C-alpha cells in the first residue's frame, strides 16, 4: 500500500470537520456519533501507520504536492510520531465517546469540529518536518484549544481561555521571531536541513533563535513559569478536552520543543539551553507538586499533578542522553494513559455528582465504585508503586540521571513522589473511607469499559513493561538521533549552500 496514504491522518480529521455543517443540516443528532466514527477511523489509520513504521523500521516521509524536501513541506512519521499519532487517535476516540455523554452545552456541531481540529493540530505538530509548518499546526492546536477552553461559556471558562490566549499569543509571536532568525541565517525551513546546517549559524543568532523557539514552545509545554495559564484552562475546559490537553496537547508542545533543541545540537547554545530546560523542569515539578498539595478542587489538583509530570519529562529530555530521552518518552506514554483515565473519571464524577470539589468525592467508593477504582489505580500509578506503569518510567528516569551523575534528580523524584503520595492518598481515603449521603449511581457501561481498558493498560505495562519500553526506546532514538533523522529525510541534492 502506498505509504503516502498516511497523509490521511491529516486529511481525514480535516475533511470530516468541514463535513460537520453538512451533517448538521441533515440531522443535529448525528453530529456526535459522526465524531465517534471519525475518531475510530482515525484510530484505525493511526494503527496502520504505527504498524508500518514499527515493522518496517523506517519512517514514513509524506511529501505534500510531491515536492522533495526542503522544497516541499514534508511530514516525518518516524517511530516517535507513529507512536504519538496512535496515542492521539486513541485518546481522541475515547474522549469522543465520553463527549457524547458529557457535552450538554450547545452548539455541539461546533464542538465536534473544534474537537477534530484539536486532534489534527496535535497530529500535525508531532509529525511535521518543517519548522514554519510546526508553527501553523501549533496555532491550529492552540486556537482550537482556546475555543474549546471557553466552550462552556461560563465566566470561568472565558477567563481561563483569556489567560491562555494572552500567554499563548506572546509565546507564538516570539516563536515566529525565532523562525525569522533561523530563516534569515539559513534560507531554509526544513528541519532536517536546519539540523544539517546548524553549525553554520552565527553563534549569537543561534542563541537567540534557539532561546526564542524554546520560549515559544515552552508556553505550550507548560514549563514553569510559562504554565500559569494551564491550571485555569484545565479547570475551566470541558472534561474531555481537559483529558486531551493532558494526554497529548501538552506532550505535542513538549515534543516540538525537544525536537528543536536536539536539531540544533550543533550550535553552541545547545548545552546552555539543556541546562535551562533542566532547571525549568525541576522548578516545574516542585511548584506543580506543591500547588497540588492542598488543592480542594480535584480537577485542578490533577491539573497541577499533570504539570509536575510534564516537568519530569522535561528533566528526562534535558539530561541530554539517549537514556534520558527514552525515560522521557516512556513517561510521556505512561502519563498519557494515566491522565486520560483520571481526567475521564473526574469528568464523569462531575457529570454525575455536579462538581469536582473534594466534597463531591466523599464516599465515591460507595456511590460510583468503578470510577473510584479507576481513579485509585491512576493515583497509585502516578505515585510510582511497582507493578503500575509510571513506576517503570520513574525508575528509568532515575537510572538515566544516575548515568550522567545528576543525583539531584533522584532527590527531586523522591520528594515529588512523597508529595504526590500525600495528596493522592488523601483523595483515595476520601473516596473510599469517608461516608457521605447520596444514592448509588448507575455507572455508564461504555465509560466503564473505557476506564477498565485504561486500567488494564496501566497494569499490563506495569507488569510487562518490556514491550512498551522497547517502543519508547525506539521512539526516543528517533528523537535523539539527529544524524539518522537527517539521513531519513530525502533532501533534494541541488538545494544546498
Amino acid at each position: 500500500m502506498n505509504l503516502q496514504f498516511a497523509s490521511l491522518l491529516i486529511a481525514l480529521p480535516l475533511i470530516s470537520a468541514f463535513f460537520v455543517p453538512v451533517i448538521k443540516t441533515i440531522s443535529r443528532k448525528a453530529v456526535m456519533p459522526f465524531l465517534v466514527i471519525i475518531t475510530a477511523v482515525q484510530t484505525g489509520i493511526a494503527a496502520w501507520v504505527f504498524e508500518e513504521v514499527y515493522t518496517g523500521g523506517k519512517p514514513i516521509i509524506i511529501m505534500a504536492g510531491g515536492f522533495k524536501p526542503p522544497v516541499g513541506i514534508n511530514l516525518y512519521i518516524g517511530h516517535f510520531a507513529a507512536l504519538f499519532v496512535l496515542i492521539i487517535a486513541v485518546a481522541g476516540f475515547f474522549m469522543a465517546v465520553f463527549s457524547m455523554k458529557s457535552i450538554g452545552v450547545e452548539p455541539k456541531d461546533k464542538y465536534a469540529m473544534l474537537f477534530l481540529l484539536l486532534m489534527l493540530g496535535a497530529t500535525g505538530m508531532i509529525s511535521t518536518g518543517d519548522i514554519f509548518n510546526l508553527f501553523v499546526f501549533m496555532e491550529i492546536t492552540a486556537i482550537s484549544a482556546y475555543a474549546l477552553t471557553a466552550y462552556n461559556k461560563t465566566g470561568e471558562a472565558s477567563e481561563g481561555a483569556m489567560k491562555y490566549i494572552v500567554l499563548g499569543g506572546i509565546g507564538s509571536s516570539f516563536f515566529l521571531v525565532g523562525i525569522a532568525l533561523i530563516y534569515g541565517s539559513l534560507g531554509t525551513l526544513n528541519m532536517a536541513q536546519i539540523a544539517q546546517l546548524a553549525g553554520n549559524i552565527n553563534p549569537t543568532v543561534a542563541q537567540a533563535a534557539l532561546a526564542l523557539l524554546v520560549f515559544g514552545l515552552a508556553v505550550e509545554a507548560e514549563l514553569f513559569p510559562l504554565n500559569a495559564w494551564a491550571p485555569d484552562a484545565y479547570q475551566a475546559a470541558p472534561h474531555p478536552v481537559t483529558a486531551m490537553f493532558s494526554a497529548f496537547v501538552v506532550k505535542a508542545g513538549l515534543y516540538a520543543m525537544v525536537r528543536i533543541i536536539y536539531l540544533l545540537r550543533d550550535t553552541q547554545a545547545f548545552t546552555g539551553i539543556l541546562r535551562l530546560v533542566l532547571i525549568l523542569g525541576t522548578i516545574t515539578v516542585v511548584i506543580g507538586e506543591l500547588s497540588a498539595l492542598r488543592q480542594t478542587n480535584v480537577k485542578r489538583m490533577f491539573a497541577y499533578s499533570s504539570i509536575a509530570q510534564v516537568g519530569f519529562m522535561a528533566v528526562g529530555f534535558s539530561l541530554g542522553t539517549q537514556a534520558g530521552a527514552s525515560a522521557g518518552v516512556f513517561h510521556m506514554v505512561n502519563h498519557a494513559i494515566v491522565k486520560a483515565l483520571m481526567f475521564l473519571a473526574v469528568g464523569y464524577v462531575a457529570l454525575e455528582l455536579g462538581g469536582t470539589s473534594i466534597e463531591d468525592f466523599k464516599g465515591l467508593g460507595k456511590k460510583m465504585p468503578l470510577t473510584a477504582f479507576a481513579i485509585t489505580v491512576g493515583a497509585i500509578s502516578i505515585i510510582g508503586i511497582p507493578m503500575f506503569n509510571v513506576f517503570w518510567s520513574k525508575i528509568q528516569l532515575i537510572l538515566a540521571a544516575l548515568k550522567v551523575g545528576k543525583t539531584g534528580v533522584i532527590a527531586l523524584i523522591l520528594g515529588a513522589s512523597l508529595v504526590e503520595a500525600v495528596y493522592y492518598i488523601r483523595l483515595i481515603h476520601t473516596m473510599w473511607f469517608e461516608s457521605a449521603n447520596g444514592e448509588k449511581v448507575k455507572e455508564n457501561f461504555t465509560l466503564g469499559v473505557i476506564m477498565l481498558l485504561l486500567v488494564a493498560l496501566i497494569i499490563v505495562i506495569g507488569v510487562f513493561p518490556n514491550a512498551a519500553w522497547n517502543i519508547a526506546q525506539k521512539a526516543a532514538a528517533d528523537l535523539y538521533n539527529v544524524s539518522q533523522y537527517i539521513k531519513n529525510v530525502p533532501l533534494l541534492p541541488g538545494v544546498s549552500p
Partner: protein
Amino acid sequence: MSIGVYYFGAVSLILIGLYAVLVKKNLLKILVGLSIMETGVNLLLISIGYIAGRSAPILSEGVGPNNAVDPIPQALVLTAIVIGVATTALALTVAINLYETYKTLNIEELRRLRG
C-alpha cells in the same frame, strides 16, 4: 551593531506590543498589544526576505529569477497574518463573553480562577 530601519521598526513594534501587555489594565488594550506584536513580527519576517534592489517575485514583464526577492517570507507572512486575524477574532469573542458575565474588562478584577 547596525540594524536597518525596517528591523528597527519591526522590533520596536514587537516591544511596544509587549509593553502594552505588561502595563495596560484594560483587557482590550492588552489584546491590541498582542496584535501590535503580531504586526511587528510580520514586518520582521517580510524585511528578512527583502533583497536590496530587487522587485516583487512575480516573474513576468522583465522580472527574472535573479532579480526577484525571496518569495518564501511573503508566503509565510500571508499565513501569519491569517493566524493573527484568527487569534484576534477569538480573543475578542472571549472578551465579549467575559464582559457579558462580569461587566468589566479590568484584568485586576478578572481573577476568579487562581491558586
